[in-house]
């Protein structure tokens, strides 16, 4: 089911879908779609070797947390295909990118569009902050910084079992402020875990605003290299650069691709909101209407029909 559409087309679809959803729901994680659309499109549409989904196209409601009394519990990883040795595994480390990740599942035919209607609704598994049971998710990453460690452990185990499938962690740059990220890189390097790679959305944004104003992280490429990873920096909106970066040899080391992105790519109107882009809420109905017209035009679609409140 790969490559039915071009990755560029999928990326455009992700932006349009997240935009439409945010317009209808009075806000959302718009800037994450701007920065990460190409990255998630690249992962699902061409970079990852994933099998056919094994869960229903319309997500089931929340069916309880893992417990000894809940034997039928499953994670949302089935939307990424079955757990077979040859297939890759993907963790979405910044769980607040869930809306963008769900949009990607829809654009790549892994989930019905109806699934997004359940977003952030009580009793739904399509949660605002992606949980283990949310479509496309396999582990809880809502506490930022734990994703790469989990990926390293899974990759070590898969390598030990001789499985050919790789482990990919989609990350966000805010996570480099967490010490655990560096613990994970040094461990992956120390143990030669080279079936592990990460694609990091480096949009220089975090919840409080621009990262430099919150906590400077300096030259993270140099830091990743110093901790033992192979690190490549690219333009996050240049798919050919992304393809080349993925092909970078990294024998005996994890590969970290720093995808330097614009948090307003494809939705220039959001520049007016800079640097508070983490979660975009409309300040007024007028702003909402103005944004609707402006961004729709840039995305090449008609303005979204809004319900009157």
């Amino acid at each position, binding site marked *: 089911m790969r490559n039915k559409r071009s990755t560029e087309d999928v990326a455009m679809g992700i932006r349009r879908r997240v935009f439409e959803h945010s317009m209808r729901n009075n806000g959302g994680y718009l800037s994450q779609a701007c920065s990460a659309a190409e990255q998630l499109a690249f992962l699902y549409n061409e970079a990852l070797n994933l099998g056919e989904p094994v869960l229903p196209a319309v997500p089931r409601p929340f069916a309880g947390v893992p417990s000894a009394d809940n034997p039928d519990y499953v994670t949302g990883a089935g939307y990424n295909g079955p757990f077979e040795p040859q297939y890759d595994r993907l963790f979405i480390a910044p769980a607040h990118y869930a809306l963008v990740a769900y949009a990607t599942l829809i654009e790549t035919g892994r989930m019905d569009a109806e699934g997004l209607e359940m977003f952030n609704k009580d009793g739904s598994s399509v949660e605002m902050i992606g949980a283990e049971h949310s479509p496309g998710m396999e582990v809880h990453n809502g506490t930022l910084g734990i994703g790469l460690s989990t990926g390293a*452990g899974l990759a070590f185990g898969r390598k030990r079992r001789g499985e050919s499938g790789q482990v990919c962690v989609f990350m966000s740059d805010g996570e480099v402020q967490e010490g655990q990220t560096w613990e994970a890189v040094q*461990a992956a390097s120390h143990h030669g875990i080279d079936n592990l790679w990460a694609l990091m959305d480096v949009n220089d944004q975090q919840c409080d605003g621009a990262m430099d104003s919150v906590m400077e992280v300096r030259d993270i490429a140099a830091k990743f290299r110093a901790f033992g990873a192979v690190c490549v920096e690219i333009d996050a909106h240049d798919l050919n650069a992304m393809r080349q970066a993925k092909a970078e040899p990294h024998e005996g080391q994890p590969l970290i691709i720093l995808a330097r992105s614009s948090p307003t790519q494809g939705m220039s109107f959001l520049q007016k909101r800079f640097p508070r882009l983490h979660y975009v809420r409309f300040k007024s109905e007028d702003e909402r209407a103005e944004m609707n017209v402006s961004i729709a035009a840039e995305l090449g679609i008609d303005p979204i029909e809004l319900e009157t409140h």
Partner: protein
Amino acid sequence: MVEMVNRPYASAFEAYAVKHPDVLCLSADLTSSCEIDGFRDRHPDQFLSLGMAEQNMMSFAGGLGLAGYRPFLHSFGVFLYRRPYDQLMASVAYPRRKVRLMGFLPGITTPGGMTHQAIEDVAVMRSIPNMSILETGDATEVESICEAADSIDGPVYCRVLRGSVPRLFDSPIKVGEMRELATGADVLVVTSGIATEEALRARDALSKAGVSIRHLHIHTIKPFNEQALLDHIGSVSKGVVVLENHVITGGVGSLVAEIMADNGVGKPLVRLGLNDTYAHGGSRGYLMKHYGLDAGALVRGIERIIGASTGIDEEALASARVEAVHSAVKAEAL
């Protein structure tokens, strides 16, 4: 004279792990302190050094669990939950990974002071959904802890004794059960871990003083056999005393209190342990006496229940084992 067993965990873990290839031995820079240095040297392929980085180790173990492995994490108990608590929750407990947390130096069994003493670990672990808790009280339990822990479908935290450990029991841990060490009719004494040895020290003196003790040793703190405890409480006339190497909040004493309250049991209860205080660095014998965790403290607790003096003084209690802080039988001081 009680038999002393040197480093029971070292040989027990090795014997168990070599038979179970999906068991991996993880260490966070306390390899000899957790008695797995010999295993590391003889089975390097099954040993994984993760350095002094417990947060990564915890999530990494969650990833290994996803790959079908059953990692045994070795560190001091305190380092397995205080710093990596978030990772313990999200990467291990929530998804019910089969991660075995082998926590050494429980409570005041370390001279390392506050930073090294896991005094509230049971309280923390009891409150975590999906978590099981085992505690060893003698060499036989240490020898059986690996198999017991690995039988659990989900994560488990174990309080493990190390170094020179007395042999008090002749049967392995059976998860979910409790040991009935005396079947008297006046006072129920409930102990776990090293507190059990203290209770045994007081046994003869209490008997001579005419106090009939019913004594339970708890190795499985969660899950817990509530009905068995209620039956024992129903078999004594006076009340219950709990002694544990832990703060009295949230541990075995609290567990007993909750069960009594939940079931409307109106008998007196005395909870002994660290009473809302940190400890400091010192020898185990000194700390147990100073903080009221020893046989003498237990006798005073029993006197509160029966409302009378037993006349038992320190001399009447069997002598405590004395271990130097820097004993030769320990791998190292800490």
